[in-house]
């Protein structure tokens, strides 16, 4: 058979998937991937990933927004000073509104950008081991590695009650 790069286990239940993950980890597997129709706390626990760096984008985006908002309002007001209602040319209270809105706007967009960056989206190509059922009610665990590891993975999946195990 052709050289498989990975093996996927299709699980009907989240507990089984978790079990599979646990034993993969126990065997020292590092390179595996999990598909699920919905985020499950059980899986999250089992995977125990470290905190997402998206929040940094959020922070810096927001700060940029604030700076930009105030800068723009002040710069344009000073560019052509026109007095209205005897109010100061640089009148802070109204500019706060502008600063606030731009904070939210740029912050939000930066956050989304961050998510796309780290989640590796958009990903229009095929994903190894992906199966449409994973967006319905099945859970998928894909393990990658050399032939030996794959063989082991097959066993693990089968043992943890995979409904189906196949190479990819």
């Amino acid at each position, binding site marked *: 058979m052709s050289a498989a790069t990975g093996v996927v286990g299709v*699980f*009907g*239940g*989240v*507990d*089984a998937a978790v*079990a599979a993950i646990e*034993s993969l980890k126990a065997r020292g597997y590092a390179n595996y*991937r*999990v*598909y*699920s*129709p*919905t*985020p*499950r*706390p*059980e899986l*999250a626990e089992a*995977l125990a*990933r470290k905190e*997402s760096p*998206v*929040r940094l984008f*959020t922070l810096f985006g927001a700060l940029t927004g604030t700076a930009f908002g105030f800068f723009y*309002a002040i710069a*344009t*007001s000073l*560019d052509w000073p026109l007095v*209205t209602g005897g109010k100061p040319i640089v009148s802070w209270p*109204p500019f706060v*509104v*502008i600063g*606030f*809105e*731009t904070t*939210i*706007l740029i*912050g*939000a*967009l930066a*956050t989304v950008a961050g*998510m796309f960056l*780290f*989640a*590796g*989206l*958009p*990903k*229009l*190509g095929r*994903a190894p081991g*992906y199966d*449409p059922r994973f*967006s*319905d*009610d099945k859970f998928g665990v894909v393990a990658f590695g050399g032939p030996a590891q794959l063989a082991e993975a097959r066993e693990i999946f089968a*043992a*943890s*009650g995979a409904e189906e195990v196949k190479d990819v």
Partner: protein
Amino acid sequence: MATLATPIPPAAPLHAEAPPSYADTTRDIIATLRPPGRKYYVGMAFVLVGLAFGAFCWGYQLRYGLGVTGYQPPIFWGTYITTFVFWVGIAHSGTLISAILYLFRSGWRTAVYRTAEAMTVFAVMTAGLFPILHLGRAWYAYWVFPYPNFRGVWSNFRSPLVWDVFAISTYLTVSATFLLMGLIPDVAAVRDRSLGWRQRLYSMVSFGWKGSDREWHHFGRMYLYLAGFATPLVLSVHSVVSWDFAMAIVPGWHATIFAPYFVAGAIFSGCGMVITILVPLRKAFHLERYVQVRHFESLAKVILLTASIVAYAYATEYFIAWYSGNPFERSSFYNRAFGQYWWATWIMLTCNAFIPQLLWFKKIRTSIPTLFVISIFINIGMWFERFVIIVTGLSHEYEPWQWSYYVPRWPELGILVGSFCWFSMWFLLFIKFFPAVAISEIKESLPPPVQAGGRR
């Protein structure tokens, strides 16, 4: 979502009878995307006709000038601004349900939030039209944006209208993004169950989402932060809108209570609109299993709360007008209640302050038809609230010599109707192209499928 430190507790069992499985969920919800029936097309045709009439009215107004409206100085603002505020208000509950309740982890939002959020986006799209519609020279509307131009003239950041420009456009962008992001996993699910051009479309919209652990991980965080942004945003937007009035010197407008008062009113009207939309939707798509009576009840409770806040605000307004001893305020508010516009004021009070009190009774809270009727009253009442504030305020100002009376004319009403059709058009399109209930989040709140005979 899963990335929450603690998972959302499925409060009561989501459903009395046998819980739908993951597979049921996917199937049932995607069923809503099936090719529409005759009813749908009839409705769509109706909506398009209304929209066309609204467009005609605007063209007519552009050709001959705002004289075609009923504006009668000193009433320089009328139904257009009224309707603008109305739609912005409608928008708010959507964000409230999808963002604020999300942060508060209230489980019941899951069923209704997608609808609410779509409503938000379309309502803002509608509201955004009105400041332009009401301009004397709409073709120069772009001058309010502070874009670099050869004149070297910028826009006046001291003007609440410019705040509006920023607030509304930000709100539209962020809430649209929020809706789109939330859709990604569901669209992926739809993609995997569709063929041909639809599949291509959906894989585009889902950005090739696969639901891998890595994706879910960052997605969850992003969603949390967006919710975090949307929450202060929604509060700020309607505050800014209220400041259009509160920043003015007009008696009856110039009040510090306006920001909270408007936000409460907005959520109030919004929840009303959510019910107005959900009831028929639920019926048409047989979503009774997912959108349940207890969801409506929760909505009713929010309405009851906000209605009480609004009623309190009314009371405060009158009290302060009297207590301040300011002759202009007093005269303005007396005129509001007993002057030429008494009818508008009393419609407003009845619909917003009195009728919602019925919701104290569980019987009424849990009866879908009654809720539907009440929600209609709320929509009417909240439109009139803005009408009362704007029109009676302007009709009875400082200069007694310039007191006057205004009633809208047909082009204004035509555009009002058109705005509802515009909104409905987008909504009708939405429910046929995107799942109106959040698949992945429903699943999340369901007990996960467990395999008998896993490893022991």
